[in-house]
């Protein structure tokens, strides 16, 4: 800025005048800053010109609005004159005609280019993380809670109540529903090795009714969905595997007679949910249990094995 056009020191101002001077100071600062960004050839000229025009604006926020407009003008001028030889008339010092180069960004990379490169870099980083399994490791760290917790002096264990049948009242089953040890039909193998009836490992079941009954337990039949289709993606990604036991009640048409439930958890909520979805999807594709060759409705545990395959 030309030092000649610095206003003389002004006397102290009253409070209202001081308040009015704040926008004016800000306006001057904005204009000086904007003019500097217009490039070395134009900065002195624009600063002096704009400060002179600022002085004739109405005081207060009109000056601030004028200065903000000058900031915008700088951007437009720098954009239009970048890289071009622009005759700008007399120089700021008034000594004849000067043809100057307008503002050119001296740095190798403009701000926009740097932002673009940062965005590209972030994308490359994310793709690299997916490709190299870093994301999987992160998920493992996030998903699995730490095995070691705070250790405190162990309190004496509470007496564990003895579980008896009265602790778990079960609704009485009416024929033809039975809870029996499942029997796998050796003559008709299941289509998938992952879903096979397994011996019941829960509380002891009531004894079967007396009498010779040739019972062939049902299981996954023809068209039963493949376990892999219901392997949770998140579990597969973090290498989670296990066996979930689902209690299914199948009618004499091979359809689910009631909502399946988890009889024995795999240890993973995701795998349990996947097993339930599989059991529901298989409705209509179960082999029916037969007694003496006659299809009957029956409840039995169905083991669903989720295992990773290479």
């Amino acid at each position: 800025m030309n030092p000649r056009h610095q206003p003389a020191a002004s006397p102290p101002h009253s409070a209202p005048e001081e308040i009015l001077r704040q926008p004016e100071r800000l306006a001057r600062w904005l204009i000086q800053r904007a003019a500097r960004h217009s490039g070395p050839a134009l900065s002195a000229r624009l600063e002096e010109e704009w400060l002179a025009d600022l002085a004739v604006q109405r005081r207060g926020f009109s000056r601030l609005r004028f200065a903000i407009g000058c900031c915008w003008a700088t951007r437009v001028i720098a954009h239009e004159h970048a890289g071009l030889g622009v005759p700008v008339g007399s120089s700021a010092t008034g000594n004849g005609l000067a043809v100057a180069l307008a503002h050119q960004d001296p740095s190798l990379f403009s701000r926009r280019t740097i932002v673009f490169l940062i965005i590209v870099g972030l994308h490359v980083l994310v793709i690299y993380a997916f490709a190299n399994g870093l994301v999987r490791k992160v998920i493992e760290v996030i998903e699995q809670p730490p095995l070691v917790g705070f250790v405190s002096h162990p309190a004496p264990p509470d007496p564990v109540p003895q579980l008896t049948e009265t602790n778990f009242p079960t609704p009485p089953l009416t024929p033809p529903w039975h809870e029996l040890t499942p029997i796998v039909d050796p003559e008709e193998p299941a289509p998938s090795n992952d879903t096979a009836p397994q011996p019941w490992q829960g509380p002891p079941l009531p004894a079967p009714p007396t009498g010779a009954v040739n019972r062939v337990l049902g299981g996954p039949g023809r068209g039963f969905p493949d376990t892999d289709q219901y392997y949770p993606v998140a579990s597969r990604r973090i290498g989670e595997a296990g066996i979930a036991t689902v209690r299914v009640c199948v009618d004499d048409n091979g359809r689910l007679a009631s909502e399946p439930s988890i009889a024995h958890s795999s240890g993973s909520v995701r795998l349990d949910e996947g097993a339930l979805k599989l059991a529901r999807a298989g409705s209509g594709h179960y082999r029916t249990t037969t007694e003496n060759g006659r299809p009957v409705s029956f409840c039995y545990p169905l083991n669903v094995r989720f295992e990773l395959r290479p």
Partner: protein
Amino acid sequence: MSLQTLRVLEAFLENPTDELAGADVQKRGQLASGTLYPILLRLESAGWFVSRWEAVEPSSIGRPRRRLYRLTPSGLRRASEVFSTFGRGVLA
């Protein structure tokens, strides 16, 4: 040619021999400073205007010098052609 540029030219055509500072053009044309100064520089670069510093001593008047713009003869002719094409009523 934009409406804002026409307003700038119209401000000068009121009295083509006048020298106007940016603030004068701003008042006459009702233009924002962010619009006005790029237009002035653009027209000056194109040879429509010439500009000079106000012949005063800043220390004596207590403010910076104003930059005064004036239409060149070719600028006056071209501006007149523009307005004869569009008609002055375009800015009304």
